[in-house]
């Protein structure tokens, strides 16, 4: 759905419900698998929901449409959030979430394009997804847009900046990169490990357009996209987010980067998400 006007209240309520469901499905998968990455999945729930339900031209009825918009989850460990969005979008039944990370499942630990309907690119090894998104944007020849989500910790990978440099050089106006700036990586706070510093200045120094927003605010995401679409060249949307967003005991904690909740924690997490 490509909108002319701003999100209506009705649409906003619907998106919030979708994001809530996205979180519940992510946690359902991770809990069933007894492994996975809840922190970084919960932090992108609004971004992924916005893209799949308010932005991208993709349809489960025509999953290989050559003119569809493309999505690359460069921070592939947040796969549960992507799978949840694809399930909600109708690419496969929501029931599949329970098979996450199991032998024989279509839902691999990290996105695998040959296994999962709707996944445009295999990712998981950090730093590689943005390059592939850049390639898709080149091949688009004006027929579609390409969206990628990268993590803030992932920006420590040098290949990201190779892709950033080339995307500006080629003035890829159809490339939109969301930085999930949740400030925490596996081992601890990102700024204690290898500081990412001022991301707006960094991307602007590389020639990119930038937007800096609250990545959990749908209206802010919409505003950033509207602004980005009017500009020439690629845009980085720096999204301030909270790792583990929506589950208070997971929020801002490196412990929940790659740990699954136990039964009690899972119940508490679901109850809190449902209540909000």
């Amino acid at each position, binding site marked *: 759905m490509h909108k002319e006007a701003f999100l209506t209240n009705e649409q906003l309520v619907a998106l919030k419900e979708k994001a809530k469901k996205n979180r519940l499905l992510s946690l359902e998968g991770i809990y069933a698998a007894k492994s996975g990455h809840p922190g970084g999945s919960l932090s992108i729930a609004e971004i992924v929901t916005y893209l799949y339900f308010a932005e991208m031209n993709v349809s489960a009825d025509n999953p290989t449409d*050559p003119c569809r918009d*493309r999505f*690359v989850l460069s921070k592939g460990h947040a796969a549960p959030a992507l799978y949840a969005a694809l399930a909600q979008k109708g690419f496969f039944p929501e029931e599949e979430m329970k098979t996450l990370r199991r032998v024989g499942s279509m839902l691999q630990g990290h996105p*695998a*394009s*040959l296994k999962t309907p709707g996944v*445009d*690119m*295999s*990712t*998981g*090894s950090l730093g*590689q*997804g*943005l*390059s*592939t*998104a*850049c*390639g*898709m*944007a*080149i*091949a*688009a020849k004006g027929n579609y847009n390409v969206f990628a989500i990268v993590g803030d910790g992932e920006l420590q990978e*040098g*290949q990201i900046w*190779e*892709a950033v*440099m*080339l995307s500006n*050089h080629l003035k890829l106006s159809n490339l939109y990169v969301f930085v999930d700036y949740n400030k925490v990586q596996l081992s601890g706070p990102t700024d204690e490990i290898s500081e990412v510093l001022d991301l707006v200045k960094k991307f602007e120094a590389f020639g990119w357009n930038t937007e800096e927003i609250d990545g959990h605010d749908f209206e802010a995401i919409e505003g950033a996209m509207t602004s980005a679409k009017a500009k020439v060249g690629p845009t980085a949307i720096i999204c301030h987010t909270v790792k583990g967003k929506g589950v208070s005991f997971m929020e801002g904690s490196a412990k929940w980067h790659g740990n699954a909740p136990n039964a009690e924690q899972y119940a508490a997490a679901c109850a809190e998400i449902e209540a909000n």
Partner: protein
Amino acid sequence: MADIATREAYGRALVELGKKHDFYVLSADLADSVKVEYFRKEFPERYLECGIAEANMLGVAAGIASTGTPAVASSYAMFTAGRGYEQIRNSIAYSNLHVVIGASHAGVSVGEDGASHQCCEDIALMRVIPNMTVISPCDAIEAAQATEAALLKVTGPVYLRLSRPNTPAVNPEGYQFELGKGVVLADGKDVTIVATGLMVAKALKAREILKEKGIDAAVINIHTIKPIDSALIAEYAKKTGNIVTVEEHSVIGGLGSAVAEVVCEQAPCKLTRVGIPDTFGLSGSSDAVLDYFGLTPEGIAAKVEASL
């Protein structure tokens, strides 16, 4: 075709193929060296200069290929198979994307640039990756046809190993390259020399030296290292009972290892691997470095004689 380098034949073939088929060609500041400069001049709208950033180039190629248009990514063997190993594995091969990696300047025949640029590990690195096809043409005519096969016959990733120096023609005009099929260039009953790439021409000369000594050697060109022609190798293992592999690559993991795997499982026989020992290369002219490592007709003949 004249005695030109396989990289040169590849560069020319891309232009011919580009006239009829849609694909992108990418390079990383080495278009002239790896001969995709010809394609750039002819089809600038389908050429992509990526700058000195090979990892990104391989990822961009994966992204392009994911949309259904093949991509040819070209640099030196060292900076594709070496530097870009994980991008090739995870971004390209895992999704079985149709990316042709045109890897020039393979092996020690790079010469003067020295060990930092002499990739003798690439066959080992590439053939272990699932979905990957590995081709190592021996002369210009084969390189041109291998380029065509990589773009038109294969649907997944291809590693095309190319060389810097000019190479004598081994195959006759009218030669038909057949992916995955070894070529018996000369029959023999005492021993079988199995060679690839630049070493094929030298193996044929070694055969002449051996002939004068009364040794009847068969010579097989294995241009496709993966999938390897195991039936032909097993046939000659049984027929001659003695195989000597020759490659401009480490004796670990390359053609010698691939042949050993076939022979051990299907037709055990004596086997000698000739190649670069477990060491780095060194600076020198192409011929001088090959000579240093014994990768000459005389050196090969001596190893074959010793194996009897």
